[in-house]
């Protein structure tokens, strides 16, 4: 075998091995082998979320932003998403927008956290800061793609999605959410975050005792059982986006030929609103966060997505009440 052949074989073997090892993080966490197992002190239902966060005024609606597969940690998401998150908060003043959940870890631990490979991820993060298109940065995407597939896999999803749902609940509590108040929560999943949002939606309504809606921006989603528990989902995707439809292609439950699947029943019941976006791409120029590319209406790509989300959330009567004090992005 030539050197190149050997190299390619080694790369494929490494890829397969990495994929095979991907579910172990969440499985080991659940079995108590590694990662934190200790639950936070349980806040009581009637005291508005426990002593620690009782001083934070609750909002009338919460929107939890779940980033795409480019995220390295909750506080290290790609720069292009920051104005989008800021725009969400500006357009939905009565909604508290939270972005401190890292969707690709069951313990909310970013790649640069207390991990054995943290130094490598920090090095890659440095490279990406200098050059967002650095080849090594693709390793972040690959690692997180495997976690999306873990969430979507019927064997691992029940465990993975439980971990993330608990982290979302913790984040809500940190931001003054009152359990039992019935305050609605929306999960905004961008790209792979769409699947994570849908997966977590199986547990979250029960964990917080409130309805959960999902906003998917170019979301890559399977026929996850979480679709049965959502109040509604708005799914936006661009016609030049090859990645978002992958969920449709790869998971038979989303095919029309299975009308009784959870996804198709939710569609038939009107629980999923499909919002196609013309000329939107997944990455690069013309993507959902592009504030320079203009539509015929004169709006930028990003402005139009933000407008659509604002309209849908407002029409659903979710974002009403007094303006909130925004929290820092990733905090």
């Amino acid at each position, binding site marked *: 075998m030539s050197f190149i052949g050997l190299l390619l074989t080694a790369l494929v073997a490494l890829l*397969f091995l990495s*994929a*095979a*090892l*991907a*579910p*172990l993080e969440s*499985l*080991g966490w*659940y*079995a*108590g*082998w590694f990662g934190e197992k200790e639950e936070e002190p*349980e806040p009581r*239902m*009637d005291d508005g979320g426990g002593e620690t966060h009782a001083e934070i005024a609750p909002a009338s609606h919460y929107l939890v932003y779940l980033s795409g597969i480019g995220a390295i940690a909750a506080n290290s998401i790609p720069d292009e998403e920051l104005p989008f998150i800021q725009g969400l908060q500006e357009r939905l003043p009565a909604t508290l927008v939270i972005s401190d959940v890292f969707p690709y870890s069951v313990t909310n631990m970013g790649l640069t956290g207390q991990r054995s490979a943290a130094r490598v991820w920090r090095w890659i993060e440095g490279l990406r800061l200098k050059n967002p298109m650095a080849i090594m940065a693709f390793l972040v995407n690959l690692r997180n793609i*495997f976690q999306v*597939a*873990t969430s*979507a*896999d*019927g*064997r*691992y*999803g*029940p*465990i993975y999605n*439980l971990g993330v*749902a608990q982290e979302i*609940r913790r984040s809500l509590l940190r931001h003054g959410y009152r*359990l*039992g108040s019935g305050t609605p929560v929306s999960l905004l999943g961008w790209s792979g975050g769409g699947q994570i949002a849908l997966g977590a939606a*199986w*547990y979250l*309504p*029960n*964990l*917080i*005792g*409130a309805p959960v809606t999902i906003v998917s921006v170019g979301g890559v989603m399977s026929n996850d*059982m979480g679709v049965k528990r959502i109040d509604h989902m708005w799914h936006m995707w661009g016609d030049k986006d090859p990645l978002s439809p992958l969920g449709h292609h*790869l998971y038979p439950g989303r095919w029309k030929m299975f009308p009784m699947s959870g996804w198709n029943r939710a569609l038939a019941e009107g629980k999923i609103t499909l919002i196609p976006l013309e000329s939107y791409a997944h990455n690069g120029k013309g993507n959902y966060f592009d504030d320079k590319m203009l539509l015929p209406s004169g709006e930028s790509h990003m402005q139009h997505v933000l407008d659509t989300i604002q309209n849908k959330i407002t029409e659903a009567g979710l974002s009403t009440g007094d303006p909130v004090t925004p929290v820092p992005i990733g905090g």
Partner: protein
Amino acid sequence: MFHYLWSVWRAIQLGLGLQPDIVQIATNTPNATWIAFGVVMTAGISVLIGQSVILFANQVQPGRFLMSLVINGLLLVVGWIVWTTAVWAIGMWLFAEDASFVLILRLIGLSYAPLVFGFLILMPYLGPFIQRVLYAWSFIVALQAVKLTFHVGFWHALVAAGIGWLLLAVITATIGRPVVALRNYVWHRLTGTALDASANEVLQQFAIDKSAQAASKGDKS
């Protein structure tokens, strides 16, 4: 020990696709049965790693996890011997050739080699597909083992293996039930998990149970 492990590794390579010269090798190699045992044990351990979600969902601790892997290897060894006996007996009954039991035991042992990649069943999304491919591959190699041992064609080998499989299924569902129950009991005692429930059933139940617990955590009522 190193020499033995090296022999098992070589046997795994040979088992991925049996060539006719394997009969010579399996007949003349010292300790060939013992080496085939190594292949089957490795396959059993690897397959359970691939299906280990069931152990993790039961929050099995590392010590018991390792023990479960070894026990699964031993269970596969028992399966290997029973399956070989069935195929050999049917071959002796169907075909003119008198074949050596030890030879077919060794060759069918090698047919477990593809399952050494069973740990890849862990892969999200592709895992269940890989599982089917590995089992089909292993079965095809087992047919090759029957062909080489009894000097018969593909269809004859398929008939012998098929009847062998049917026979085992019937025995397992009838007079073998106490043995299966004993196996499940021993497994449960040693590993703390259930062997007779399918992974899907357990995980569906897991999601429902955890969701109900979440409800008691999150609802005022």
